[in-house]
């Protein structure tokens, strides 16, 4: 391999950090698989409350899909070395992340106003599950936002110039993953009810 990777004709190997991310995503999938299968088990037992998802989750779905688009455009802009557009796009992506989180929280407030209790005495596991699962998804989203902020700071740093698109590519893969994870959860909650 010493000589071979120097050879440009050689098929390009995956970057170890990117590969690590893929394995980590498999790991995160297992966590949500565990939670959603626990949900199925619990649902088939007595005393499982039924309620509709808040409408606002559709808006948050639209926002997260949009943010996937912007992060992808950011990667394209970086590769084209259009740094101005790149900076704008990652800023927009991070903001969309915050909007998504805010919409999710509003959704839970909405449910709570309709008498659904998530925690404490009198709460039903159906509602608690929704809170835990969607909450954990938001935590993973928050992780993506933090990494994006680091990329953001680095993009505005003037001392060092970075020509490797690897960091932003890794961020975008993770961002899409969190997006797809949300779609899975949404479909799961709608379909299972």
């Amino acid at each position: 391999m010493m000589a071979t990777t120097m050879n440009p004709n050689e098929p390009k190997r995956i970057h170890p950090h990117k590969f690590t991310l893929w394995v980590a995503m498999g790991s995160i999938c297992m966590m949500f698989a565990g939670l959603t299968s626990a949900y199925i088990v619990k649902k088939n037992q007595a005393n499982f409350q039924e309620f509709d998802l808040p409408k606002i989750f559709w808006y948050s779905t639209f926002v997260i899909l949009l943010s996937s688009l912007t992060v992808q455009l950011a990667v394209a802009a970086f590769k084209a070395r259009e740094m101005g557009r790149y900076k704008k796009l990652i800023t927009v992506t991070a903001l969309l992340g915050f909007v998504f989180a805010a919409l999710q929280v509003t959704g839970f407030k909405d449910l709570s106003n309709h008498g659904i209790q998530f925690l404490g005495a009198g709460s039903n596991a159906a509602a608690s599950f929704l809170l835990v699962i969607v909450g954990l998804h938001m935590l993973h989203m928050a992780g993506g936002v933090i990494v994006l902020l680091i990329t953001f700071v680095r993009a505005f740093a003037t001392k060092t110039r970075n020509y490797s698109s690897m960091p932003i590519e890794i961020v975008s893969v993770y961002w899409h993953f969190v997006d797809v994870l949300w779609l899975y959860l949404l479909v799961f909650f709608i379909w299972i009810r």
Partner: protein
Amino acid sequence: MSNEAVLHGVASSHDAHGDHHHEHHHHETFISKYVFSMDHKMIAKQFLITGMVWAVIGGLMSVLFRLQLGYPDQSFPWLEDLLGKWWAEKGHITAQGYYALVTTHGTVLVFFVLTAGLSGTFANFLIPLQVGARDMASPFMNMLSYWFFFAASIVMLSSIFVETGPFSGGWTAYPPLSALGDASPGSKTGMDLWLVAMALFVVSSLLGGLNYIATILNMRTKGMSMTRLPLTIWALFFTAVLGVLSFPVLLSGFILLIFDRNFGTSFYLSDIFVNGVGALPNEGGSAILFQHLFWFLGHPEVYIILLPAMGMVSEILSVNARKPIFGYMAMIGSLFAIAILAFLVWAHHMFVTGLNPFLGSIFVLLTLLIAVPSAIKVFNWLTTLWRGNIRFTPAMMFAIGFVSLFISGGLTGIWLGNSALDIHLHDTYFVIAHFHIVMGVASMFGMFAGVYHWYPKMYGRYLNNTLGYIHFWITMIGAYLIFWPMHYEGLAGMPRRYYDYSIWESFKNFVELNRFISTVAMIVFAVQILFLLNFFYSIWKGRKVTSQNPWGSNTLEWTAPIHPGHGNWPGEIPEVHRWAYDYGKDGREFIPQTEAVGADESHH
């Protein structure tokens, strides 16, 4: 150099000369070399020594509760002086102290010693050295992995010193004992600390596991195809895959548990009536749900513990029998089969929870299927030994001991995997005997074999052989003397986790036998201290290693200098031309992996 090339970009001209910059010694402070080290070899030693500290604590705990089981009527006033009133009032281990001891012993040995101490040590040490890499895919994440483990250790250790004692509801942490603070003293602060420690531990395992997988798949040197990897690496690979896929499920189980404990949800808790508290407000929770989530990790965890030992034993048996490993591909195939089956058998821990008997029969079938790959491995080890030119080094003794224990413990697994027999045997000493032999002691033997075998590579010195043989024989004989009689106790129906058997008419007759077991346990524990003395004495005063390849071994770690620096090889990483098991071929004792295949060489 390819890995650096991939990591730092191929095109730059700097990398064309990249091979040389590892010879420069970058400045290292004490902190960066020994404390927050990013060198996989140093991190391995950190895992090993932290694991040893836990092994002493966990082992000492077993000595203490064996003292109670062996001498239930006797008072040891010095125990109260030593441990205080909470643990040993009037010289007796108290009931709450006893349950705290067995719980912490289990948690610590399973997770902190045999997961972090075993696979943390050897995955870190061997993966880069045996695949031919400078370090892990992400040395920084690797460092984090150790420090998360360290933080978990501190939290777990502190739980021993809180006023209400550490968690005492069994290492499996079933609710309601784990979910209700009012259920027992140990369910209060002790359980909170237990959960925090375990959450940190899961993060540590995941960070480690991700790195191991990425390193094995992406960072192999030139010529090191997957089928040229030593079996140690294959075993560590499957271990990491199991951990990465099963620990998150445990974490989700813990998260739900935390909500039940602290936020009043009803995932696991139902309307239970607690003495002195009254009926709980919770409704409709299912304690069985936790068991499913727990054992979905819990069973793969058994193989997370055992597979690294299997891998190292395969390597050590082959090197010291001076013969190629028998059935290399079958060994990989059986590792793969075990890894798959590990995820499909968790409910055999739950046969008596009211599980549907039809479902139970499927889990019986899948459980008994594990006997097939296990048997393949055993026969391959035996045929590797067959007519070998065996060198009985201490490492080899422990490796052979592993095979013996794996057979003895594995056979009782066939009994326990049967759901009908399990009605009688579950939660008895038969189960204790089974898993201690097959997973506990066997994996410890794998670990000892690994330590004796790779010690020269770790420290550039040898362990003392005589002490090694004493360590081996007493531990080997002791292990059988401790756990063999427990099978009889279990068959007679003696339940596990009881505080005092002498007050039960049915188990009174085992008091003498229990005393015998306790005596042997103390002797075996003392011999482990001897091993530790040997270990630490030899780091500084052991016989020096003078040749690069003291065992005449084929694998890459022995082509590195006796004291490899950070980066492992000065100059280029060696290229690999053959598998790792060319022993006794074409009239030569061994042919290292780095040697090119000759024109007139026979095929293996």
